[in-house]
């Protein structure tokens, strides 16, 4: 009998405590971010869309080997010895011409394993996250160019990556 009334009392007490807590939250500031108007500032290390600075790519294929989901596709051509020598921006000579460098971002698992082995740091993950598209096909990012438009000067500082 004592337990019966104690239980009722306890129920009322704990319910009132709960009500007090939710009441106090009614007047605390909401933590919602109103997305399209207010944008989240991503930290600099954020791993979002991949970007390849193709002018610096030496076609070594280390990123392709590192990718656990096989979403990077690359083909290269050997350059003629007689042609003008090309250099990546950190001075590495480019001996292979990258004729195809495709990344299927719909397959990418954003693990960042491809960017670490890159010897010229030309493949980076950027903090850009708004790249939704309407068809899967548009997720295929093609970085290779027909002819590299700008040849880097070996003297320019090398791009940093995290």
């Amino acid at each position, binding site marked *: 009998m004592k337990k019966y009334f104690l239980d009722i009392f306890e129920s009322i007490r704990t319910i009132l405590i709960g009500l007090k807590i939710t009441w106090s939250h009614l007047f605390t500031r909401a933590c919602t971010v109103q997305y399209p108007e207010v944008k989240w500032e991503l930290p600099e290390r954020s791993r979002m869309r991949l970007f390849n600075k193709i002018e610096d790519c030496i076609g070594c*294929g280390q990123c*392709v*080997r590192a990718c656990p989901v*096989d979403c990077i*596709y*690359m*083909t290269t051509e050997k350059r003629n010895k007689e042609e003008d020598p090309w250099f990546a921006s950190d001075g590495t000579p480019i001996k292979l011409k990258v*004729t*195809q460098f*495709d990344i*299927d971002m*719909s*397959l990418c698992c954003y693990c960042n394993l491809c960017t670490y082995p890159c010897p010229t740091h030309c493949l980076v993950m950027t903090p850009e996250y708004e790249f939704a598209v309407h068809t*899967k*096909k548009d*997720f*295929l990012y093609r970085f290779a160019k027909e002819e590299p438009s700008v040849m880097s000067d070996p003297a320019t500082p090398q791009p940093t990556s995290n």
Partner: protein
Amino acid sequence: MKDTSEILQILQEKFPKYIVKSNLESAAPFLVVSAKALPAVCGFLKNDKDMNFESLMCLSGVDYKDPKTEDDRLEVVYHLFSMSKKHKLILKVELSRDDPKVPTVENIWGIANWHEREAYDMYGIQFEGHSDLRRILCPDDWVDYPLRKDYVEPETYRGMPAAASKQFAELAEEGEDLGTNPYRAG
């Protein structure tokens, strides 16, 4: 607290014929038990007051088929652990590829039930006496045992393509030239 060599001695006294092999040198020493004696050995290991292996940490199937070594056996590996005595033991049972049969230990450790179902699902190892030996992770009508080294991925499952359809494949069908991927070969 006993190490594997001490346990081996005790087991050899108790079950002289059934401890087939032992490897005490490597970092992870193990004993190989013949399949027949497994329930007896395991029961002893669990209930003996010096052993007291009350938990079966892990039960794994392994396929050792390797074209280089011409090894062709299947194995079931039992990782035992005793929380009270704090010692570990690795038991292995070697099985032939064509007729992999091993008695169940689900009556000794409850968890073995699901672990054995998984080993059956992935390697086709038959656990004799198991109460409910069904596939656990794959669909019931899946053909063949996926983790065997000679497993060939089926092309379709119930009319659906079983292999992951990549978007690149779709693109290729649409006439896109996607090139080859020389670095992934092999």
